[in-house]
Every structure is written in C-alpha cells, then in structure tokens.
C-alpha cells in the first residue's frame, strides 16, 4: 500500500510547519524521516495519520484520500505518536483490547491478536500490570503493540526507539525491518545510525522542506563524489612519502593526520581510484603499506551539510 504526499502545506498560525512537500512511499518500503527539531517531521506524520488536516495539498494512502475517506485511511494505519500517549491507569492487556475494538477487529480474533502482540513485543511479564507502573522501554513496547494490533498495512512511527536500552533498540529495529518487508513503514528519528540501519530510503527535511531524498548510499554519493582514503605507510621519512603521494596523478590532495603519526588522508580526484597507484608507488620506493581504509562520508556530515544554513 503506497502513500503519496502531494504538495502538502500546513500552517500553525502564520508559521509554515510544512511547506509544499511532495513524496511517495512504495509498498514494502521503510522510509526514514530525518531532520532537526521543529523541521516538520511530526507534523507530516500527523497529517498522514489524519490527526491534522493539511491546509493545502492532499495525501493518499493506498489510493484513498485522507480528506475524503479519513476513517478508511485511519483503519489502514498503525500510528505510534511522539511521546507515546497511553492511558496510564489501564492494564496492558485491557488497553490492547480497547485499541483492537476501536479498530474494529472482530471480537473472536481479539484475544489471538493480543497474544501475538504480547509475544512479538515481549510484554509477557507485563500484561497484567498497569501501564503507569511500566518503565519507559516497556511503555514504548506497549505503544508499538497498539500500533500493530490490527495488522495495519501502513505503519507510522514517530521516534519509535526513544527511551529504550541498546538491546531493546536492536530488537525494535529487527521488528521494524521484519514488518517492513511486507508493509509500508515511515519512521522518524534523529538518531542517524538508526535510520541508516533500518530504512531503505531517507528523507531529510528542514524548515518544512525536503532537502534530500534517496537511499543511504545515494545520499553519500551525492555529498562527496570523490574517494577518501586513510593510509599508513612505513619504511621511510614522512616528508618523502608525503611528496611521493602528492606526485600521483589521481590524487588531488594529501594531508598528514596530526594525531596519528604515519597516517595520511588522501583525497582522490572525482571518479578516480588511487589505491593501486599508492601500492605501486610504495613498491617502487621500498616502503610498505600498514593500513589502507576508505573513509566513508558519515550520514552525520550529509545531515549537517543539508540542514545547516
């Protein structure tokens, strides 16, 4: 079930929270929403989940418009809001039953669905506890369980891993990846590693606009087309090695890494590969390479690049 967001603008008073954004999420795709605080991630998610109506533009989920068929659309979506609001005084199991009923899950299927959610989200020991008594991580699992209870076609998760410990984060990521194979998932986060680990595609928004859209590797390519290598060469004077490196045709610039002696950072020209020539050069001069690692542009750098101005 695909989601099409078309020229959506949402105003809060005079302020544009989301400014004319359009994008498409395909079935079976996990889309990561990145952006600094207040960029419009949550607003966009609220608009897709029919909590807020856009001032302009339209959103369709599986061909159904949120304006014309909000209830149909809502029944297709499992939504985990930011801050994960829950009825604190309810027992986990009652809460899940309540949400299942609201979603119109047939009565005879409810116990089975609840059992499955409790298993999937690891809530077996907590099911008879009041939600108030749960730790933040368990509350987050309850939030996820309620979003999944009706086996939705589309899953929208606003910062799903906040407050979880590293083991739980890994579990939730696995779960999202598993769900994402058949379903459409949109998740927002400001943890870049998380988005990179779980998402097929990343959308970076800033000031209500989309500033980057692509797979993690595409984004990396776009940020820095040229290769960066980190090399450690021994067996000679650093000055000589430095000059020799600079002489190689494919290399644009060389820097001595100050903190680690013997290491050089080598930038190649666009679309060029320098590893082979470095190797040949060392072989001729009787130096030897101790280490050679390609430096990947981190997503952090891309993120900073497109959102800072």
């Amino acid at each position, binding site marked *: 079930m695909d989601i099409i967001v078309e020229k959506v603008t949402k*105003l809060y008073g005079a302020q544009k929270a989301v400014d004319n954004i359009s994008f498409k999420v395909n079935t079976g795709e996990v889309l990561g929403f990145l952006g600094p605080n207040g960029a419009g991630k949550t607003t966009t998610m609220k608009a897709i*989940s*029919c909590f807020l109506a856009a001032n302009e533009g339209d959103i369709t989920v599986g061909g159904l418009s949120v304006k014309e068929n909000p209830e149909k659309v*809502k029944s297709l*979506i499992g939504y985990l809001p930011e801050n994960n609001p829950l*009825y604190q*005084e309810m027992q986990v199991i009652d809460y899940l039953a309540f949400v299942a009923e609201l979603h119109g899950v047939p009565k005879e299927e409810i116990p089975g669905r609840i059992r499955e959610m409790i298993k999937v989200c690891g809530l077996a020991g907590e099911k008879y506890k009041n939600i108030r008594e749960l730790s933040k991580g368990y509350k987050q699992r309850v939030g996820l369980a309620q979003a999944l209870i009706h086996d939705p076609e589309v899953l929208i998760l606003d910062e799903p891993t906040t407050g979880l410990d590293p083991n739980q984060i890994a579990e939730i990521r696995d779960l999202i990846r598993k769900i994402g194979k058949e379903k459409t998932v949109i998740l927002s986060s400001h943890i870049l590693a998380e988005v990179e680990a779980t998402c097929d595609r990343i959308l970076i928004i800033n000031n209500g606009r989309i500033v980057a859209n692509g797979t993690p590797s595409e984004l990396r390519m776009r940020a820095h087309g040229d290769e960066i290598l980190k090399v450690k060469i021994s067996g000679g004077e650093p000055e000589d090695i430095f000059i020799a490196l600079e002489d190689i045709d494919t290399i644009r610039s060389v820097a001595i890494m100050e903190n680690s002696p013997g290491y050089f950072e080598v930038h190649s020209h666009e679309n060029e590969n320098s590893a082979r020539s470095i190797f040949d050069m060392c072989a001729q001069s009787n130096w030897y390479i101790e280490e050679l690692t390609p430096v990947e542009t981190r997503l952090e750098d891309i993120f900073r690049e497109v959102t800072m101005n």
Partner: protein
Amino acid sequence: MTKIWTIARRELQSFFDSLTAYIMLVAFLGFSGFFTWISGNDVFFIGQASLQSFFSIAYWTLFFFIPALTMRQLAEERKTGTLEMLLTKPISDWQIVVGKFLSTLILIVIALLLTFPYYFTVWSLGPIDQGAVILGYVGLILMSSAYISIGLFASSVTNNQIVAFLMALIIGIFFHVIFGILASSLTGEAGSVFDYLSMSTHFSAISRGVIDSRDIIYFLSIVIMGLMGSEASLAKRNLN
C-alpha cells in the same frame, strides 16, 4: 454504535478505577439521604408520602457533582496526548464525544438507581403518586444530560481540569438560577424568554408530574448543542 460503546465502557471503567465513581456515589447518596430523611424539609417534616424533598436536593447535588465528573473527560486526554491516539483511530469525533457523554450518564443513572430504596420506603409509609415519582426521575436524568453535555463542552475547550470544572459551573449556574431570577424580575417578552431558559421551570414542571414536549425539546436542545460544541472544539485542531 459499537465504537461509542467501546469508548463509554472504557470511561466508565476509569471512573471506577480512579475511585471517582465511588466517591461520587457515596457523597451523592450521603447528601441526598441526609436531606431527604434527617434534616430540613425532609419527608417526615412534610408529612406526605412523596419524594419531592429528594428531587429538590438531587437537583442541587447533581448540579455540583456532574462538572466534577466531566471536567476530566476531554481536558485530560488533551493534556496527556491520548486524544491524538484516539483521534487517529478509525472513529469519528462525534463518536468519541457521545461515548464520553453516555459513560457519565450511565454513572448518574446508577446513582439514581441506588436511591430506589428511598422510593420503596416512602411507598411503605403511605400512598404515593407513582407518576410523579417516575417523572421526577426522568426529570433528573434529563437535567443531568443537559449538565453533562455542558460539562463535556467545557472540558473540550481547555486542557486544564480546574478551568473545565469552573467553566461548567459558571455556564450551569446561568441555567440553574440566574435565568430564573431574571425571569422573575423581568416582565413581558424578556421575562418569558428567561423563564423558558431556566432549568428549574422545566424541572419543577416535570417533577410535579406534568410533562410537556416543550420541556423535552428544551433539555434535548441543550444536550445537542453541548455535544456539537464539544465536537467542534475537537475539530478545531484543523482550523487556523
């Protein structure tokens, strides 16, 4: 309809889980029992087999209790954010409002059912006007419905429960006494308008055993306006 019932059931459950329901029931029965049987214009003082004294005390106790029950209903959901969770489920704003209205009404009906021993006691004391008793209860239920919908509206416009409580009382006091006072001090057209707006005009007519379609229309229109107002303020999230 099932979804309205789902909402109503959860609300009712939370009344009982949070002790609100028990406190309300005990206080209501305590107050109304005390003034019906022990003090003031009680049954023995009047010397008639009638529940009139109970109805007139319930008229006031319900007026104060209902805002305390409704103040939480939408204000708290707005504050904790669970409203967002509810509104993103396949359920309309109207169903949420009606579900919450019904839950409070059911609690009031439970409270009134628990006063049936008063009725049987009075009945055993002497001949009782059955029609007046039935209509007295109907009147209390209609009046409660009106105040519940006002309380719900007050709760829908704020995320602060105290504000919701006070606002419901202030709106309520107009219907409860102020319109009546204005009606008695004004003459002519204005007087009769205020007389029609006054809750006590309609309530006392019904509890005396006289029911008129105008009374029913009066209560129902307050209920509908309150519920529609609440629905509108839930929908206000989309206006700017």
